[in-house]
């Protein structure tokens, strides 16, 4: 395993300088917001068309076995981000976003927590805030971003992309694990930014694997069974041609696989952008990082350390109050409507 340069926090301060300045300035605008109850449902996502399964059943596919013998141990780096609504005001919402980078190397395991960043998004400042994440000046026109239900996800996703860019530049010869896909096109995954991440990764010897836990592709695991494919885990199934055919609104950069890396029913969509043979990269991943239900442990750790807990939300609300923001407690609509029957 190569000895690799570790990113410093000075880099992060430089990268997020503009975002921090904009965020701090925006918090000065908070006046009379309702603090929100912590609700993990906010983080759920599912944007896939269920009708795709029927088409997939007609496809011809074959599996690629992952060779473990001779696989090299490599440095693994996993990135994840999380966001939470801290309060909702008359003119906008206060969001918290946090990222984490988990690194497993010959030196051991290191977790870097980045954030939380706190920002008050209003229709007036949304483009400048989002732009400040991407750089100063922002590299594209952000005027079409709206303060709608997707903004929380967009903010987290943009931060994640910036962290991914930071990691692929700073690390070498590593397997970079991302949460989600390499689909580009929607507002939270600008094509130019995803392309830039992949372009920066290759020359530095970094291989990118993006694991998606919630993709509709996972259901195809029950169609492309081990018996049908005559293969035993660990194996991957190349689904790139299918994805390119089916996904009309987004562009997938890299190749898309279904990966069953351990015995059991767990199968994941994995988008790969590698400078080595993909089965070789998967082999190194299996050699270097334990799997939990067929999913890399390092990605779970990255997820765990960026996820907001209820105490995090309380602490951020307390910080806002210290900054002079006036927050009110809002009753839960769910409680008002359904208690005492529904005590979820």
């Amino acid at each position, binding site marked *: 395993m190569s000895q690799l340069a570790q990113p410093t926090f000075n880099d992060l301060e430089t990268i997020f300088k503009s975002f921090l300045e904009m965020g701090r300035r925006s918090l000065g605008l908070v006046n009379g917001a309702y603090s929100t109850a*912590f609700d993990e449902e906010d983080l759920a996502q599912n944007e896939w068309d269920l009708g795709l399964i029927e088409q997939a059943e007609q496809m011809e596919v074959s599996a690629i076995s992952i060779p473990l013998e001779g696989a090299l141990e490599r440095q693994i780096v996993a990135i994840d981000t999380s966001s939470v609504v801290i309060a909702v005001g008359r003119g906008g919402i206060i969001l918290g976003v946090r990222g984490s980078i988990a690194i497993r190397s010959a030196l051991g395991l*290191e977790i*870097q927590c980045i954030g939380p960043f706190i920002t008050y998004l209003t229709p007036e400042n949304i483009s400048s805030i989002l732009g400040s994440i991407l750089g100063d000046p922002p590299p594209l026109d952000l005027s079409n971003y709206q303060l709608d239900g997707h903004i929380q996800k967009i903010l987290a996703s943009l931060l994640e992309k910036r962290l991914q860019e930071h990691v692929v530049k700073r690390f070498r010869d590593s397997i970079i694990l991302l949460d989600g896909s390499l689909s580009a096109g929607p507002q939270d995954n600008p094509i130019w930014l995803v392309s830039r991440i992949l372009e920066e990764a290759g020359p530095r010897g970094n291989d990118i694997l993006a694991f998606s836990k919630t993709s509709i592709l996972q259901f195809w695991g029950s169609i492309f069974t081990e018996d049908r494919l005559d293969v035993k885990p660990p194996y991957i199934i190349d689904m790139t041609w299918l994805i390119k055919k089916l996904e009309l609104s987004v562009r997938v950069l890299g190749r898309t696989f279904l990966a069953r890396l351990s015995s059991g029913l767990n199968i994941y969509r994995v988008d790969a952008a590698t400078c080595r043979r993909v089965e070789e990269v998967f082999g190194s991943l299996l050699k270097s990082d334990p799997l939990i239900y067929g999913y890399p442990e390092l990605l779970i750790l990255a997820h765990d350390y960026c996820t907001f*807990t209820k*105490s995090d939300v309380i*602490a951020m609300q307390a910080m806002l109050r210290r900054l002079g923001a006036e927050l009110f407690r809002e009753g839960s609509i769910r409680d008002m409507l359904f208690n005492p029957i529904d005590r979820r």
Partner: protein
Amino acid sequence: MKILSKSGDTIELLASPDEEPLIRGDYILITDGGKSLLAQVIDAEYADVPGILEDVLRELASEQLSMRNFDPYGVGSILLDVKDSRRIIAKLRGVIVDGMLRNDVIWLPSRFSSRIERASPELISELMRTCGRRRIIIGECMSGVVSVSAEDLDGRLTIITGKKETGKSYLTKILITSLAEYGATVVVFDINGEYLGLSETINGAASRIADKHIILSPGENFRVSVEDAGLKTMTDILQHIFATPATTIREFIRIWSLVEKNEGEITLRGLISAVGRMPMHESVREALMSRLLSLSETGFFDDENPTEIKEILNSGRGGVIVIDLSRSIHQTKKIIVEYMLSKLSSLLREGAIEPLFLVAEEAHLYLRETYWDDLVTRMRHIGIFPIFVTNQPDSIPETVYRQADNIFLFNFTNESDLNYISKASRIDSETVRRIARMLPPRHCLIIGRIVNDLPVVVRVKEVELKTMGETRLLFGSRRA
């Protein structure tokens, strides 16, 4: 701090870890408008913060990892405060309305706008003050001096209890020397010789009660005549201490009458002589003779030069009269106590002496069972005011705790001891359990009339008197 909840007489407060630390027994004042709620802190626990399990698990897992944090807003430090926030458990002691502490007022302060602060020692001192004028300074509480009134020990039943080496004797010495200074007479049954040095200070100088400190050593300067003891005391000694059968007691009473009639006075020698020559069943003679010879061997009975206990008690200046039981064998201790209680009772009934305080340390070792109820009821009414000192709380009958007017409670960790003490009727059991378990040495929880039923935790002041009765050590000083 903010009010979290109230249930029954328990109030829970939420406090930040940065706040001034509270000590068990501290009083807090929750003020809202013109009224204040007085509550006593009995414990502190971690607050049940939402999601704390996830947070702690994350921290636990992080111990094996190298962690780096880029926290531009410093949320981490606030988060630590949130995670470490405390739940203060306090007991309501009343509502202060117009400066008066009242228990009958139902009132709750606002959870959000009330002001919560530590009560001042002056306020607590004022609220616990009774109407007595003779103050006894016993230590400090919440950085203020605590004094109690000697009048609140007068006519009362007092218990001083706690495990070994927690400071019971220190406090007892403070109380009895102060009582003596105010002119009271205190009789001490001293089984460990702890009260023999009261006339000297630790520097070797004469103490303030040096001229009021009398040590009575049985068999030496404390001997009594059989006649002075009287027939009842002697039959009680034979019955309860020597387990003499009833028929033999009857024979003893007959002999006593005959000796009194024939010789005009009762002496132990006269009784022994009479038992030897008068006709009676040989087994009775043998039983009586062996017991009377045992009494004679104690050296406590001297019919020629008896100590005049009445004169000692009637010196008129009060004082601490220590009956040194430390060198007497078990049976002799019981004989002496039997005599003393009987004698004191009769003198008080006759009005020959003034009421007095009786300090009985580890009384279960020498006090027969029938005397407990006697002490807390009949004897108290004639003017013997007991102060029981013990490190074995269950050695004192439960009924005594229920009737106790004042309890000075030092540390106990044993659950069964705490259960036993918590039966005291003047305080809730939760306060006893939570506070007594954690009391440091020389700290005690005072309960009862003496503190106007406002329990206070007091750090007992240093005693300047010469310490006696300390454990002799094989390896020298414990600190060495």
